[in-house]
């Protein structure tokens, strides 16, 4: 009975307690109304907690209406809500952009952001997806301090990406891209920005040394989107719009053109070229309108689905990108799919596989400058009187006396397209035999096929100047098959509470194989589309083919340790054996170490933790390499040429390049110091970093000494010379929320100072870009080297004064209105020795400004990027102002050019002869301030949540590259490197010409989630 009583009492007490308890239900979603599974829902002050299900739903029992429920999930700001009278509590969690718990990819591993000891910058995929770009690095511009990105116009063009300046002169400056752990070379044109979850930029050697001999230009790690636990979530992202191509210069009409040329002729003592200029009034040929579309469409579309269970998650996306060229033909299309599956078989055993099939096609004429340069009098088509009815369709066009080939005709003949097919398969197995030990092996196979087909029809526009007497057909197919395999074992353990250590060892193997075959023929019976096959060619067949292979085998290790999350140490070591290295230097070692001190975790800072959420000092050191050696470095080649043997000229062979058995990679050693900070609950955060990196054993192509017996033009690559880059990276970020209004401001600031420390011999002078740049010890590489244009001679007195001390004229052919070139060395002669530094292509600093605002359902993003202090060579000046050629000139040049004392001190007088070499001498006339500020992106969006049966619908309107401030008068101030085939990648930087501009683009976007 006693027990019955006690039981009854307990039952009564329990029931009374049950009466006081409240069951609260609800759904947890993110800001974009996507349900979040796995959110920890916790009743404060109790042990009660649950997790949200696949649909973000939860139900939890709270003791009373005073209870407070806390919702927490990694990457989101924790939210606490008092129950009060509510039984349904729906929560929208906002992402925590500054959380130090965020994970950062560091190469073969991930670490929490707070534990990073190296210089690594992270950008989230959603920040890259605000722009519609073919190459995602263009969207990265201005968002990462220390990364300089120079945009490239044109469908499929690849921007130049420099991470902390340059560390090489003759090799590639592109960083290494690693996608989901797999090295993918130096281009990511194949990636849609909608596929990307995050990008991590390894800026210093202490971070990137784990990638060894390919990391000297920095490494960009890309993580693609993966599946998440939950029911299937579908997303559709569409962005479409138009790129605007304005005529870059206001060119002369027919009458003005005649006037300009007449002035040039008469100024040179000739009779007028086109007498009675007024007769051409109203007879201007609109070449631009005939061949260039003012607007060309651009579309970026992705359809995706993610979801999964605890055992299996998946993410599937189909992505389409199309960018038309501004001609009637050509453009770039890319279709990619990404199918990612991750499996968790047991708590210890997991696996994943990702398939990534891709298709790209591109091709576009490149003659848009001809639409500007061709004379405005020539008609597009020959007049009927010049046709006899036997011409083919490509021969009906008129020939311009300006020697510019009829651009409309050129576009009509264009048939040069490339198709590329790739399939990448990437899979991993992961096993955790004991707690803390993870063994992971990952492999990938990439197969690709590229086919280039080219047909040039026969035509005769002018029998002497503009014709192809026979048509030609060409097809080239390249196939590549690459594989990688990497295995790592990582053991992490915390001991004695405050000691945390992690040790990773592993090995990697990579092999890259390729071959190509090319067929060529001439004399296809006619130019019809159906005949454009190699089999139709009737003569001059040629075939070529080759194959290649290279491989890399490496051992890697990393040790990380921290004491009480205050003092951190990370070391890494990589040993690379590359097929590109000769036997004498087969293996290369790349060590690195970095330390950090998390000052904000010190006890003495606890009193300041209302201000400092994070204050960390970092220092790193490491060695990395550049193994992108040209083939001629390790190959001995035979060339063909004419030699005098026994008094007779003989067509024979000679050793053109010789392998250097001692050749090795360029080595970059760098040190880096950084200070990371987060203040006032991370409202203000950022980092300030200083780095200095030195390249040793630089590769230069040298001629043999005469006594060696080798001909003067045979060369050998040699490891000589060194250079140094140093600079400051600054990131400042401020974010805050006031009621329904939230905003964020990010500022990135980058400085790069580059200096050549030594060349192969003392006093060596390396010329580039056709002797227009010079690289010498103690200076920046590839500075502009030419004559100083000291204004124009305004009158005879100035002409008479430009003499040596004995009255000998320095420029005997000069007339008033010509350029006065400076006798720089004062030797009384104007010659090659008067060339000097007239500018530098390297910016003093780059600044990025990224703004975002949100008010209720509206959001606004604005991105600005600037390059300050660099010079550019405007090569178009000669085309536009020089009266020597018959090409069209800028409108009003007859008044712009010098035509009397005081009229101008800039544009020389018009002259048919240019005896003073105003334009043929490379001078500061061509050098302009290349600084610019560009509004990269302005996007306004509005989101509907839980409307129309959708979780989210967002519409947006955006403009890209709408506004640019610059003093540069060329086409576009974003000018990259020179011709890498002429070793001018670095030495030819900053030469602007008729480069395809980065185009203003207007876009409309729709993002749907359901």
């Amino acid at each position, binding site marked *: 009975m006693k027990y019955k009583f006690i039981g009854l009492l307990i039952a009564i007490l329990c029931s009374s307690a049950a009466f006081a308890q409240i069951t609260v239900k609800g759904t947890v979603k993110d800001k974009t109304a996507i349900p979040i599974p796995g959110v920890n829902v916790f009743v404060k002050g109790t042990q009660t907690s649950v997790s949200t299900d696949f649909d973000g739903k939860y139900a939890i029992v709270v003791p009373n209406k005073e209870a407070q429920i806390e919702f927490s999930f990694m990457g989101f700001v924790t939210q606490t809500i008092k129950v009060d009278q509510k039984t349904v509590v729906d929560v929208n969690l906002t992402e925590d952009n500054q959380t130090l718990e965020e994970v950062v990819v560091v190469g073969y591993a991930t670490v929490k952001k707070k534990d990073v000891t190296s210089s690594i910058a992270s950008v989230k995929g959603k920040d890259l997806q605000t722009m519609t770009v073919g190459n995602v690095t263009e969207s990265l511009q201005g968002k990462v301090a220390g990364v300089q990105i120079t945009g490239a116009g044109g469908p499929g063009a690849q921007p130049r990406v420099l991470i902390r300046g340059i560390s090489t002169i003759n090799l590639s400056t592109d960083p290494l891209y690693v996608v989901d752990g797999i090295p993918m070379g130096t281009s990511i044109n194949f990636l849609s920005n909608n596929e990307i979850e995050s990008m991590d930029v390894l800026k210093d050697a202490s971070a990137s040394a784990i990638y060894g001999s390919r990391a000297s230009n920095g490494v960009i790690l890309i993580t693609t989107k993966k599946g998440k636990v939950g029911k299937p979530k579908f997303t559709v992202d569409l962005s479409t719009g138009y790129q605007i191509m304005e005529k870059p210069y206001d060119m002369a009409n027919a009458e003005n053109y005649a006037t300009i040329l007449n002035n040039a002729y008469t100024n040179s003592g000739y009779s007028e070229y086109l007498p009675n200029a007024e007769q051409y009034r109203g007879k201007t040929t609109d070449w631009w309108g005939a061949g260039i579309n003012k607007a060309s469409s651009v579309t970026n579309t992705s359809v995706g689905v993610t979801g999964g269970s605890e055992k299996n998650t998946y993410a599937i996306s189909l992505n389409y990108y199309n960018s038309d060229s501004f001609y009637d033909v050509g453009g770039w299309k890319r279709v990619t799919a990404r199918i990612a599956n991750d499996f968790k078989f047991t708590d210890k055993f997991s696996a994943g596989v990702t398939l990534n099939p891709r298709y790209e096609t591109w091709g576009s004429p490149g003659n848009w400058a001809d639409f500007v340069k061709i004379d405005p009098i020539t008609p597009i088509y020959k007049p009927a009187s010049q046709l006899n009815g036997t011409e083919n369709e490509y021969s009906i066009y008129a020939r311009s006396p300006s020697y510019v080939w009829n651009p409309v005709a050129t576009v009509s003949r264009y048939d040069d397209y490339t198709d590329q097919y790739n399939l990448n398969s990437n899979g991993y197995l992961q096993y955790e035999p004991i707690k803390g030990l993870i063994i992971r092996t990952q492999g990938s196979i990439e197969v690709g096929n590229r086919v280039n087909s080219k047909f040039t029809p026969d035509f005769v526009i002018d*029998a002497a100047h503009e014709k192809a*007497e026979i048509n030609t057909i060409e097809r080239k197919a390249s196939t590549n098959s690459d594989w990688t395999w990497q295995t790592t074992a990582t053991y992490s353990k915390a001991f004695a509470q405050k000691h945390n250590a992690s040790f990773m060892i592993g090995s990697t193997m990579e092999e890259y194989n390729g071959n190509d075959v090319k067929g060529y023929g001439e004399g296809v019976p006619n130019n019809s589309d159906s005949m454009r096959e190699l089999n139709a060619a009737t003569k001059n067949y040629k075939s070529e083919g080759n194959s290649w292979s290279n491989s890399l085998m490496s051992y890697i290790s990393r040790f990380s340790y921290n004491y009480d999350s205050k003092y951190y140490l990370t070391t890494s070591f990589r040993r690379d054996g590359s097929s590109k290295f000769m036997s004498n230097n087969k293996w290369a070692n790349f060590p690195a170490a970095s330390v950090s001190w998390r000052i904000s975790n010190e006890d003495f800072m606890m009193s300041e933790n209302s201000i400092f959420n994070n204050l960390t000092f970092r220092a790193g050191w490491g060695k990395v390499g550049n193994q992108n050696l040209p083939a001629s470095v390790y190959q001995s080649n035979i060339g063909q040429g004419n030699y005098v043997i026994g008094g007779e000229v003989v067509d024979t062979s000679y050793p053109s390049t010789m392998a250097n058995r001692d050749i090795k990679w360029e080595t970059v050693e760098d040190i880096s110091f950084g200070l990371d900070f987060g203040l006032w609950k991370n409202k203000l955060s950022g980092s300030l970093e200083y780095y200095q990196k030195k390249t040793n054993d630089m590769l230069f192509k040298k001629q043999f000494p005469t006594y060696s017996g080798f001909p003067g033009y045979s060369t050998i690559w040699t490891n000589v010379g060194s250079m140094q880059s140093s600079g400051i990276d600054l990131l400042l970020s401020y974010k805050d929320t006031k009621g329904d209004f939230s905003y964020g401001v990010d500022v990135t600031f980058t400085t790069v100072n580059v200096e050549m420390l030594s060349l192969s011999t003392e006093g060596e002078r390396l010329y580039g870009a056709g002797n227009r740049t010079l690289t010498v010890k103690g200076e920046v590489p590839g500075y502009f080297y030419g004559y100083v244009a000291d204004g124009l001679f305004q009158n005879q*007195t100035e002409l008479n004064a430009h003499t040596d001390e004995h009255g000998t004229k320095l420029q005997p052919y000069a007339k008033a209105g010509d350029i006065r070139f400076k006798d720089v060395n004062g030797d009384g002669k104007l010659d090659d020795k008067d060339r000097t530094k007239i500018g530098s292509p390297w910016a003093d600093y780059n600044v990025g400004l990224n703004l975002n605002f949100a008010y209720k359902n509206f959001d606004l993003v604005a991105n600005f990027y600037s390059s300050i202090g660099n010079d550019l060579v405007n090569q178009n000046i000669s085309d536009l102002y020089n009266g020597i050629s018959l090409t069209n000139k800028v409108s009003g040049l007859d008044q712009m050019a010098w035509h009397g004392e005081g009229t101008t001190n800039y544009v020389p007088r018009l002259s048919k002869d240019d005896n003073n070499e105003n334009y043929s001498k490379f001078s500061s006339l061509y050098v302009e301030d290349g600084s610019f500020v560009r509004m990269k992106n302005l996007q306004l969006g509005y989101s509907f949540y839980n409307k129309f049966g959708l979780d989210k619908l967002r519409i947006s309107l955006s403009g890209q590259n709408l506004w640019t401030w610059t003093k540069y008068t060329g086409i576009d101030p974003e000018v990259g490197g020179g011709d890498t085939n002429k070793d001018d990648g670095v030495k030819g930087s900053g030469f602007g010409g008729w480069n395809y501009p980065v185009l203003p683009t207007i876009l409309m976007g729709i993002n749907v989630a359901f």
Partner: protein
Amino acid sequence: MNKLSFLFLLTFFTILFTGCQENEADFPSSDNPTVVVSTNEIYGAPNRKFEIKATLADDLGLKNVRIQIPELNLDKVINFATDPLLTSYDLSYFFEVPANRGASEGFVIKLTITDVSGNAIDQNINLRLDGEFNAPAISMITPKEGAVILLSSSNKLPVNFVVNDDSGIDYIQVKCAALGINEMVQLTGAPQSYTFNKTYTLPVTAAQYVLTITAKDKFAIPNMGTLNINIVATNEYPAIYLCDQPKGTNLTTDAVGVPMYFHEKVGQDFEFKYYADTDNKQIYFLGQEADFAPHCFGLNASGNLIDDVTSSAIVLPTKGYYKIKVNPSTLVYTVTKYTPSSKVWADVANGLWHDNEALRKPFVSIAGGGIQGANWDTWNAWIQTGLHLANNPNNPYQLVGEYTLTGTMEGTFTGQWWSPSWRLIKNGIATMSPGANGNAKYPAAPGVYKVILDTELERAFITKK
């Protein structure tokens, strides 16, 4: 303002203004610079350079000298290096007087010399434009350049020339070391014209001589003119020329071809091929290229060949091609008319440049130098249609045209890629098979010339229009 702020601002502005000062070195005071000019009066002339000479000096160091003639747009500053300081400088500055100034004008050249202490002095020099700078003009009557003295007929060398000079002739001198001639004629009263006429006797052995004639004028800054005449004394004629111009014609105004050089020579038997463009064409044979004297072969009253500048012309009766043989020693000649059989370059006016040889049509233009519009590119020869020759409607073997010569000319008549081509070598020979002979340079006065390329004769005739 508290003391600390005051001290801060004081320090700040002190640094600021110190930083803004020019870095120019200060020099102590010194004496004025000095200048010694070589002359206080300089003679100049329009379109001619004159020299300003002076010695500049300063006890401490010179900074610069400024030379000014505002009327002639001259304002030149010569700056001197100051490390190390320059205490003396020999000024030698040339300046050309504009061509449009008058000879009667005069100007003042102002020199301003400044030293590093800031002392400056001025020095004026008068400039007169009535200077006479032309060397005395020597007009050779005989012998002419390249004259041939046939020793078998005479060993006398008559030397006859006229000297003219505006400012008066001081002296003339005739020298020939090989002949032992050194004749100095000092003139009194500085006549503006003087005629020299004297005959010398030559040794009977064949030789070449150079006769040097010098004349000096009496201007304040004397001018001297010199002329060298090459003479060949021979027992045989090295060359005979066919001349179809009337006597008295200046035979040096053409660029190429007049008189015409022989085609073949065996001993003293010379053979010409010649085209008479009209009936009754009159010709002579000349023993020298530039003049009718001393050896002009024509007919005497009885119709025999004689060496006499008064002889009558040989007449070719009808238009057409002739083979003409002449022996100046035996004074025998023969004239034979013939019909050419060489290739006729017809329809060259409709020539067509074409990569495909089958579609190509020959044109004939010229590549070379000293010809307006021409260079050594056959593509240029094609596009410069003004250089294209046309067929002579009256003679299928002649291509004719008009060129503007800009000075000494050289050239090769050419079609596309030198096919066909006639290289213009020495003696007016335009040959399709030049062998080792390179293009010859022909001095020519600038102007418009008539061009005849005779493909049968392989000769070019480029004569002033």
